[in-house]
């Protein structure tokens, strides 16, 4: 393990190494998980036969979130085989695309390319250009699996939408924002979290376009250029898309990590309010109203929680967004002691120190150990070196907790023991849900 100046530690095995059971997948998967969650977008996987199903299966590993309109086994696919490897896959793609336009009912068709067409050198764009029409537009997302991770694939989808579908700036709509950086399935509670952020922003007069998981389909994509601000909800995922949107549509962006709890949610609302020039008094009134309700609920929960909070030093193993939000909440507002924060999504080197900063000096000056690790063995080693009696992690770590006889709550992908549809740990509502889930593990008569 090598030490960084921030005090955080980076595990030996990095994002490009052979890895044991990493929690993220490939670029193709990230883009497919994004595309299948915009209503009436029809993805066409130009890839091997299993790539689509394998990546769609992540909806199942994320708490059985369902396949929806076009996921699961339903996604159209060229299912490339030996013949295409030898003779090229363009004819097969042309045939598949024409049939897809004929059979599948959608508003936007998105070709996602896997490893095979990248290796055999298919000219996908020229096939797409032949068949794309203004009424049935087709775009291409280049996502060879070996070109990057889930997070990169998510950005590739948004960038392809910007450069191939939207192209031009549009008149800005005041007080409207796009929400970026919450990756479907990889962020387990993405749907509920986006709903809660949308609710909160609407309270301060801001219309949020969540892009994924709403019911307006490609209208949400079309609205991207007219937002007056892009809000990046991850400390690092979505920044690349926001930069492309800025260049292409002239939309500024703020990085405002997904908040959980009173303090961070208030700070989040203030930062968005300030960026959009919304009347401070209005924002403060909303915060006061939300906080009043949140505090009453917290007060009711405190009767049980206060008996346990000092007995629950905790470790968290999660993607940056959840690791930061949930650690800060439990440490700053619930009285728990964070001992270890393992960040599993392999943020780029330059993003690591600022992320570590967010989980340093918590509460009255608590500094948990911070490890950046994607390899399951590295994660296991990090956990073995710490004391904790609550583990917030993916279900991969669930049995470590049961072997240790300590509490466990699933907060990260993969999650195999809950059904997740609307659950959220974000904002005011999500914070109390999270506390319910944590304390339910320790529920006991006082």
């Amino acid at each position, binding site marked *: 393990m090598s030490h960084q100046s921030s005090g955080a530690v980076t595990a030996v095995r990095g994002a*490009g*190494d*052979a*890895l*044991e*059971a*990493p*929690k993220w*997948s*490939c*670029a193709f998967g990230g883009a497919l998980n994004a595309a299948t969650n915009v209503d009436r977008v029809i993805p066409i996987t130009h890839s*091997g*036969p*299993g*790539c*689509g*199903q*394998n*990546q*769609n*299966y992540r909806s199942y*590993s994320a708490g059985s979130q369902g396949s929806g*309109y076009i*996921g*699961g*086994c*339903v*996604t*159209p*696919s*060229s*299912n490339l*085989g*030996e013949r*295409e*490897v030898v003779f090229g896959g363009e004819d097969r793609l042309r045939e*598949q695309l*024409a*049939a*897809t336009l*004929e*059979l*599948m*009912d959608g508003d936007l068709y998105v070709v996602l390319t896997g*490893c*095979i067409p990248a*290796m*055999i050198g298919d000219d996908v764009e020229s096939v797409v250009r032949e068949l794309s029409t203004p009424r049935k537009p087709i775009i291409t997302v280049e996502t*060879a*699996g*070996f*070109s990057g991770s889930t997070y990169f694939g998510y950005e590739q989808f948004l960038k392809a939408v910007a450069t191939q579908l939207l192209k031009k700036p549009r008149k800005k709509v005041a007080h409207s924002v796009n929400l970026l950086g919450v990756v479907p399935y990889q962020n387990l509670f993405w749907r509920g979290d986006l709903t809660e952020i949308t609710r909160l922003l609407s309270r301060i007069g801001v219309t949020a376009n969540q892009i994924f998981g709403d019911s307006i389909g490609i209208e949400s994509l079309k609205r991207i250029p007219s937002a007056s601000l892009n809000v990046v909800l991850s400390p690092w995922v979505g920044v690349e898309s926001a930069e492309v949107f800025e260049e292409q549509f002239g939309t500024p962006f703020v990085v405002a990590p997904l908040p959980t709890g009173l303090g961070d949610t208030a700070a989040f609302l203030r930062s968005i309010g300030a960026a959009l020039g919304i009347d401070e008094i209005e924002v403060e009134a909303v915060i006061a109203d939300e906080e009043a309700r949140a505090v009453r609920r917290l007060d009711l929960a405190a009767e049980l929680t206060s008996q346990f909070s000092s007995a629950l030093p905790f470790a968290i193993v999660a993607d940056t967004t959840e690791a930061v939000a949930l650690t800060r909440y439990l440490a700053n507002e619930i009285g728990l002691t964070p001992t270890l924060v393992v960040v599993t999504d392999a943020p780029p080197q330059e993003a690591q120190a600022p992320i570590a900063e967010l989980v340093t000096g918590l509460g009255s000056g608590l500094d948990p150990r911070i490890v950046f690790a994607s390899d*399951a*063995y590295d994660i296991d080693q990090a956990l073995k070196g710490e004391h904790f009696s609550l583990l917030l992690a993916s*279900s*991969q770590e669930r*049995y470590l907790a049961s072997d240790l006889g300590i509490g466990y709550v699933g907060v990260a*992908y993969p999650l*195999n*023991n809950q059904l997740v549809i609307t659950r959220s740990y974000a904002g005011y509502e999500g914070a109390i849900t999270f506390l319910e889930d944590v304390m339910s593990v320790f529920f006991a008569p006082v």
Partner: protein
Amino acid sequence: MSARENVPVDLSAKTCLTKEQRLGSVNAYHGKLTKLVADVEAGDLPVLRRAFQQTETCSLMQAAMRILSIRDAVIVVHGPVGCAASMNSYREIFRNIPKDLGRPDFELHWLTTNLTETDVVHGGETKLKEALLLAEERYSPKAIFVITTCTTGIMGDDVEGAIESLSDELTATVVPIHCESIRSAISQTAFDAIAHATVKYLVKPAREVQKDLVAIPSPYSITWSDRLELNRLLGKLGLRAQYIPDFASVEELEYLSEAAVVAPTCQSYGDYWQVALHEKFGVPYFRHPSPLGVANTSEWLRQVAKFTGKEDLVEAVIAEEIADLTPKLDELKAKFEGKDLSLLVSGGQSRCTFLPVLAHELGIRTTAIQALEIDSAMVEELGKSAETIGDIEVHVSNWQPYELTHMDARLESDLHTACPMMGLFRRKGALVRMHSFRSDFSKAGNQLGFRGVLQYGYILLRAYNNPSLQRQLSGSVALPYKKWWTRQPNMLHYASPEPGAASGGAR
């Protein structure tokens, strides 16, 4: 017996032939059962390809989920990170099985070589070696299974060479399983690739035949509670089961050569295990039936008894079981009486072959079967059922829910067993599960054996009696197919003969 009797396997080869090559398998067909049987016997099965396809599965996924519960082994997926994505859940899911139901201790570990753009350009052997050494250093496994991918296949990585170069540094036996999906349109070729590699590299000559050991190739659909039921029945005959390969230790796999017989549960999955173990080590086997339904469970036990010298015991055991079952079964059958309940069976080979017979035993009519792939070995058995279940329609499709949706809309069966990820729960009647999965230890998860008939029978009954969830969604949730699709008559609208392909069927 059919023409495929003498199709040998060649264990000196790096991997198996494809299912197309060895068994004449096809994954597109529609016709009456008797016609199918005639087509297969004549070697006249048309090989069709579809202009419109939906994502299905690949050899790698088929292989990975089946082998990753081997107890003291590590799996290395040699490819880009995404190929291993579906493996992320299983370790945890299997740990759900309570220890007091007999689950052995295990730690399942898998690695991905996580190939990047640079690796694709320069070759992946270095990273494969890195992963193998990591596996050795971390877990000292008895075996390491390497699963290859489309990407390493196209790159032309020398997997065997990379493994060989580490022979001094690894104590584990390394078993390379070739799962390049581009090789075969039949993803189930992976089953043969697992058996081929395991028998080739891992299984040792027998020390002594274990006369009470029944080896049972068990696919992912054999649940923990199915195992408990089969163990119970075999126990009455004084026999023990060794399931292949789920939850087996490496040592148990090494001595599969000592089994008294290899008994089937699914031909598509188990056939290659049987043939390979027989050819290399002389282990006897029988191909049919699966222990599914009353008559076929009885017949399965008789076959097992024949190879284990338990013929004197078996009839008494069957009689005792049937005496116990009959009143309960009669009670259940009475509940189906007069309902003319219809069932559309969609699934893998074993369920498609034997569930219609089980349903018939309960008084349920099967309207059609929809199999993922068919081959001569399956059809030889399926043909025998025609008299019992009628000359029903057979549809073959490697998933392709657009075709299943078409057939479902036309047949309007009371119950349909389609895979839930096909969206067919948005129908008027019930979508009922075809089977449960390896990790299911609940009583209701048992479908095999005598008790399984009751368990599954009651599931069918309850599904029929209350399809409220499906009704809630049917008509309210938009389907992704345009309206013309189900209004035109041809389910195989997009399928046409593969240019230049030999016919499928008998080999």
